[in-house]
């Protein structure tokens, strides 16, 4: 338990991840599911960014004369990429949602199952 308290940040992100997962699996509305997916994604991003944090560190922008410690740039670069991937998926999902609504007139997964 001490470990978990020491890593309370990580625990919080796991919490966010699970809230997102809950929305994805338990909510019927497709847009809601998508928001849940985004919550999961940001939770993971936050987790990875945090793993690059360093005590008393600053941003890894190291001009002449800057002094450390610096946060690790690698997770940051990954997450910039990750965010772009996430928005791509969101955009595609939204256009699918619009299509589904146009064809079926509803966005509730349980009603769609009947409409299939």
């Amino acid at each position: 338990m001490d470990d978990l308290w020491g890593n309370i940040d990580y625990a919080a992100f796991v919490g966010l991840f699970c809230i997102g997962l809950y929305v994805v699996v338990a909510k019927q509305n497709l847009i809601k599911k998508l928001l849940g997916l985004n919550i999961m994604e940001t939770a993971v991003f936050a987790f990875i960014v945090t793993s690059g944090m360093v005590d008393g560190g600053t941003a890894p922008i190291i001009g002449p004369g800057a002094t450390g410690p610096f946060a690790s740039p690698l997770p940051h670069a990954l997450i910039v990429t990750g965010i772009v991937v996430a928005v791509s998926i969101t955009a595609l999902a939204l256009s699918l949602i619009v299509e589904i609504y146009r064809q079926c007139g509803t966005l509730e997964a349980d009603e769609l199952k009947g409409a299939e």
Partner: protein
Amino acid sequence: MSHWLPLAAFVPLVAGALTPAMARGRPGLARGWALAVTAFCTFATAALTRRVALEGPFSYAMGAWAAPLGIELRFDEFSAASLFICVIMLLVLVYSGPYVRRALPATRIDWYYSLLLINLGGMIGFVITGDLFNLFVFMELVAVSSYALVAVGGGRTAALAAFKYLVAGAVSSVLILFCIGVLHALTGSLNMADVARRLATVESRPPVLLALAGLTAGFLVKAGLFPVHVWLPDAHAIAPSPINAVSSALVVKLGIIGLLRIFPLFAAAGAVSLAPLFEALAWLGAISVLAGAFFALFQEDIKLMLAYSTISNIGYIVLGLGLAGELALTGAGVHILNHALIKATLFLAAGAMIHQSGHRTLHDLRGIGRAMPWTTLALLIGALSIVGLPPTAGFPGKWYIALGALESGRPGFAVVVLVGALIIFIYFARMLNAFYFRAPSHKEMLGVSEAPASMLGPVLLLGALCVLGGLLTHWPVALIAPAVGRLAGGE
């Protein structure tokens, strides 16, 4: 350094991005362009495969940055799957010509080819990369283009099927990314070989276990194994037929190749043992073999039937991985390649039937064997292969997996392999019955004409490859033998 390696992934991706700009409103040009690019990739991957056969695995440092700093591309024996990917994609492109002309609005065709090329580039990148995060990026590239291609044909449920696929795929991707993050936090590296080395000294067990379990679960969802397969049947049955061939033959295999990539990471890790995981995989695979085949029995829609058979065959491969002996792994490896050929044959042939006749259930398609003899012949060969009748391509995989089950002293799994094959035989017998021996349900069925040459050609060629793939089994077996040895020896 051989530049074929990065270019094999780089070229189709750039070409995919340029397709809409170059070939705006000119479907013929878009197709020609895509064909040319894919032909280039086929050539490149063939050269690479030849090299790996002669010299063993080799690497390429992107941007000349040595391994842990930059991204390492690594072409090993399993990467030879890229050659199969290219060949099948080439045939799918040839086949797509007449298909999309009827099935898609003209304004979408260039985007369709663009997405296919991006899909191709993503798959090649996925199998050749030696870097965990790069693997994730290519996985997403494949995923985004696949989601879209599933829905590209339109139709009432296509968007819904694609959305389901997207949610399942995205959740698994997030999980995989999370685990990559855990591995990075543990080792500070993303290069696979480097991570494997550094994991050996990591002492705390729970995170390593978490990463292993999470990655495995994530890739199993991508592969469409039984309990987590729910997205697969719809996505594979509703999409346009050429896309079925790509997604069922190739895209789901990436989940398996992902597994093959991550196991070596943990092989040297002192903190975890892979044995319980393999045990679980064997059971999951066996269940999937039977469940997939069982569900397939009850499908009337020919494409749904094929989709469930994919679940069953993925089960075979996972079973082979789980048994983890040298023979079983050989079986799994060979089946990854051969199932791609078989499933592409089946989906393209079925697609040609649906395209020509406008019907898609077994009942409606009765008597089509007489109207489209060549297509049905190819379908027949594919069916015999998927059952695993020697000497077709489906046989060696099952043979080695069954031997592997005995080798590891678990004959029960060998029985599963055979029972699965038997069930598959039953539903393909149903299919052939309908095509050849039942009186047509629709009078006009006998007037249906054979598919146009550019659809028939790929179908027949793939049918021939199904037989050749079986006859020339020693070639892939010899090719992947070193990789299998490493994998089996590393436990």
